[in-house]
């Protein structure tokens, strides 16, 4: 692996990790709300969370670019606040990836929360557990399978993410060039050997990681405390 490839690997892992964390932080309350609200607008909100999927990533990236770029509304707002625009920065990548991978995190979590139902939460409340307490000690462990799915899909999708990142990241080595773009570039310039190497490495790494995750997940999560 050459230096730029290593840099791309690093950016990719960092991006996927940060994106997954941000997705969990944003997606968990959203999924919880979707699972429990009786608001009439719930179907609309659910549809909105799925919407980033239907646009091709490059196109989504294009709109994000227009929005976040120096001349876009968000860009100008940030500018007025004295902040840097988000386009072509790592933070911009995170924003783009989060939007694009949101459905993969929110939907499994929402299903998992809905499947937990009210029973265990009521039991926890009667034992003195407040809303946060029962969320973290009852709802989250019981929705464990949904979290594993959400994290897997969110992380893997960000690793393989391409169009959005290419568009709003600008493919800047060491900063916004991720592995998927590096592989893509190798393919573009007919460096198939390097492309195979990177792809193979990525697949193997992911396979091992995912297998370990699923194998661990399989083991009983029942705990004594």
């Amino acid at each position, binding site marked *: 692996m050459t230096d730029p490839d290593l840099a791309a690997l690093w950016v990719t892992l960092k991006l996927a990790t940060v994106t997954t964390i941000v997705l969990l932080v944003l997606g968990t309350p959203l999924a919880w709300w979707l699972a429990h609200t009786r608001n009439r607008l719930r179907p609309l909100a659910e549809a909105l969370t799925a919407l980033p999927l239907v646009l091709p990533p490059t196109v989504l990236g294009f709109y994000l670019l227009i929005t976040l770029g120096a001349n876009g509304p968000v860009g100008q707002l940030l500018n007025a606040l004295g902040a840097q625009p988000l386009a072509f920065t790592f933070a911009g990548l995170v924003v783009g990836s989060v939007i694009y991978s949101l459905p993969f995190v929110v939907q499994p979590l929402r299903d998992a929360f809905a499947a937990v139902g009210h*029973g*265990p939460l*009521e*039991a*926890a*409340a*009667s*034992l*003195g*557990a*407040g*809303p946060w*307490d*029962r969320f973290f*000690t*009852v709802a989250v*462990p*019981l929705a*464990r399978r949904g979290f594993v799915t959400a994290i897997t899909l969110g992380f893997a999708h960000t690793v393989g993410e391409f169009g959005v990142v290419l568009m709003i990241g600008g493919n800047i080595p060491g900063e916004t060039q991720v592995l998927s773009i590096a592989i893509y570039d190798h393919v573009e310039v007919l460096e198939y050997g390097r492309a195979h190497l990177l792809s193979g490495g990525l697949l193997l790494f992911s396979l091992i990681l995912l297998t370990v995750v699923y194998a661990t997940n399989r083991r*009983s*999560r*029942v*705990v*004594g*405390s």
Partner: protein
Amino acid sequence: MSLEARLSLRRPGFLLDAALSLPERGVTTVFGPSGSGKTTLLRCLAGLERPAGELALGGEYWQRDGYFLPAHRRRVGMVFQDGRLFPHLTVRGNLRFAMRRAGCEEAAMDAPVALMGIERLLARRPDTLSGGEVQRVAVARALLSQPRLLLLDEPLAAVDARRKQEILPFLERLTRELALPVVHVSHSLDEVIRLADRLVLMDEGRVVASGGVTEMFSRLDLPLAQREDVGAVLEAHAPRPLPGYHLTEATVAGQKLLLPGESAEPGERLRVRIRARDVSLTLKPPSETSILNVLPGRITEVVERPDAPGQRLVRVAVGDAALLSWVSRLSAERLALAPGQAVYAQVKAVALA
């Protein structure tokens, strides 16, 4: 910490509309047919439903006007009809869940665990427990949550009779010691007799009658009188054990009565249930009989049981109390039983367990 409640909750096809006023300690059993709203009432008390109305414990409002104290701040210990153990925690984890939030020491676990006979199950997952095991763990968990109000929804329905015999005296003792109201749902009169101080009869979401157990059981106008196991529940005073015979002599309705066992401490109050079916009547005092307790009394009321037309329920005033006796119409006619008549009520001591 008396409990005052006036609650109503509408559901499609069902309306709960119940008023309750419970003293600050003692057990109230809610009794009523399936679907009459017992579970719903308990859920309202626990804060798991949002009924209209008011609810206060010990003068502190839990619910009034716009105010609603959420379930987790009420410190009710609830045993749900379906157990509701946390499936992701072991039995021990379930108990600890309650203890941590109640600020209990780890050692507090030992007594309820031993009593419920769940020592062997501590490391087990709830989904590997039998029906009765689930209920026993659920009871232990509720007890460990240090509640201010204990709600038991058919806690022992799936527990076998022998285990129940072990658990009931404990619950009995516990509920007498704890200065908290206990509301208990059961279909088993055994449990009622052992545990209940007061009885609330529900039907179709409404409280049909409520009152002290003694009073409720001596009333012939309630659905209770239709039950096969109807009987009078009396207070026994000044128990005096008869060592060697495992019997206890006590004063019931101004008369000496022999009761089985000698657990009672002098000066303690006991409750005796004398089932109508266990009481036979004679006109002359019997002799050379195994029946130890023969109480002279006077008939005050004879009613026909509507659902069992061949039988009569006879109320006999003994001292200041009343016994019920359930006799066949044939006997009633042969002995010409009628109000005002003097009779001897015979009760086997062993029947008073």
